[in-house]
């Protein structure tokens, strides 16, 4: 976003509440909605990328080592990755626990 949301005055609002900057939803961090977060057991991960394909929030990225992990600023903890995981190496862990 050109400037943070809380700095916009009413005069800055575009006609029709249109958002002219494409893709700015990434400015909106949704990770704190989460109750569970996914934890990957790398010993059993085969780097198949099924979790990456199924993540509805596009919150899984590939690390330099080729593993797939969640970006916890956006992951909402839905558990779809754990459910779809080929080797069942993803565990959903309650947020307060590691």
């Amino acid at each position, binding site marked *: 976003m050109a400037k943070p949301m809380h700095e916009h*005055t009413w005069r800055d*609002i575009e006609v029709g509440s249109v958002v002219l900057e494409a893709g700015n939803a990434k400015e*909106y961090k949704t990770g704190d909605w989460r109750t569970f977060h996914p934890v990957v057991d790398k010993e059993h991960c085969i780097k198949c990328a099924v979790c990456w394909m199924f993540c509805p929030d596009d919150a899984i990225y590939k690390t330099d080592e080729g593993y797939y992990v969640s970006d916890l600023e956006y992951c909402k903890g839905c558990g779809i990755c754990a459910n779809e995981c080929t080797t069942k190496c993803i565990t959903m862990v309650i947020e307060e626990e590691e």
Partner: protein
Amino acid sequence: MPERVGMEVSLAAAEAVKLCNVDTVSAYPITPQTHIVEHLSEIVADGELDADFVPVESEQTAMSVCMGAAAVGARTFTATAAQGLALMSEMLFIAANMRLPIVMTIVNRALSGPLSIWNDHSDIMAQRDCGWIQIFAENGQEVFDNIICAYRMAEDRRVLFPAIVNIDGFILSHVVEPHEIVDQETVDTFLPPYEPLHTMHPDKPLTMGAFGMPEIYAETKKAQDEALRDSLPVIQEVWDEWAKVTGRQYKRVETYKLDDAEQAFITMGSLGQTAELAVDELRNQGKKVGLIKIRLWRPFPTDDLRQVFSGLKRLLVVDRAYSFGALTGPVASEMEALLYDVDNRPEIFDFIAGIGGRDVPLGSFIEMFDVAERDSGTEHKQNFYTLEVRE
């Protein structure tokens, strides 16, 4: 001057939409709006108008179709009444915030409970705060003219709001009246093609209908409210332009025999015609009575009304809807608020009348006048009266 053609008002409304060369019509039939969209459907089917006519399964979808079409730059039209308008409700508020210049005729009909197909203003009053421009027409020519004017207002870059033209159901929509049907060239000159400010196009990605977080929602709504208020002068400017073309001048608030009046009726819509006759009748009896007609209901023409009220001792407001459990009917409520801090404010009498198709003939206006004379300044004065209701 164009020839005057005798035509049912609903058909004249459809002819006006055709002359505006709309791109998309989407509607669901509901009495007493039916003839407008039926005739438009024929016009499109006969190839007289190159438009998409989208029949849908509900009014909620009719409005959604218009919104989608408007978002990609189409000129759109729909029409509805009563339950149909109620079913559109959630979309109306969104269309206003998205500033999509859709034009809709509402053929005003009583909301059900009990079911009624007949005229009153309960449908539009329930949507009063939806954020659209809201115009009331008094006769067929006004319907025809105001549909064309509504497009020009709605699409003006200084406005960009959807607009409603209210037509009293049956009383106005189904009568045959003489209309001056303006020619296509005149309308084309008056109403240039719609050029949207923003459109959905892959070459220029943007987001319409976005989420509004608490950090931005309040700013968004103030921007919308300010913009609607700012449209007041543009609305008048469009009517002034129309007057140059046709000789027919419309104003946000219109008056009849008000100059030396001590009392005035206030009406919206087709009742204005009967009220004029009542004013003539009372004037013949030596009563200094005039008439104020609110043509533009939203944005509310506060300053125009303040000006016309000056010198009046008594206002006789005719409300065609209840605001259940409220102090008065919806129009009188605005008047009470408007005049609260005015010195020598006129005494306001509110008459809730013409509900669910009940006739309001000339005699009813005379009765209103007599009741106000009788109760003025006494303890018998009521917040509102329901004279037509059997006790």
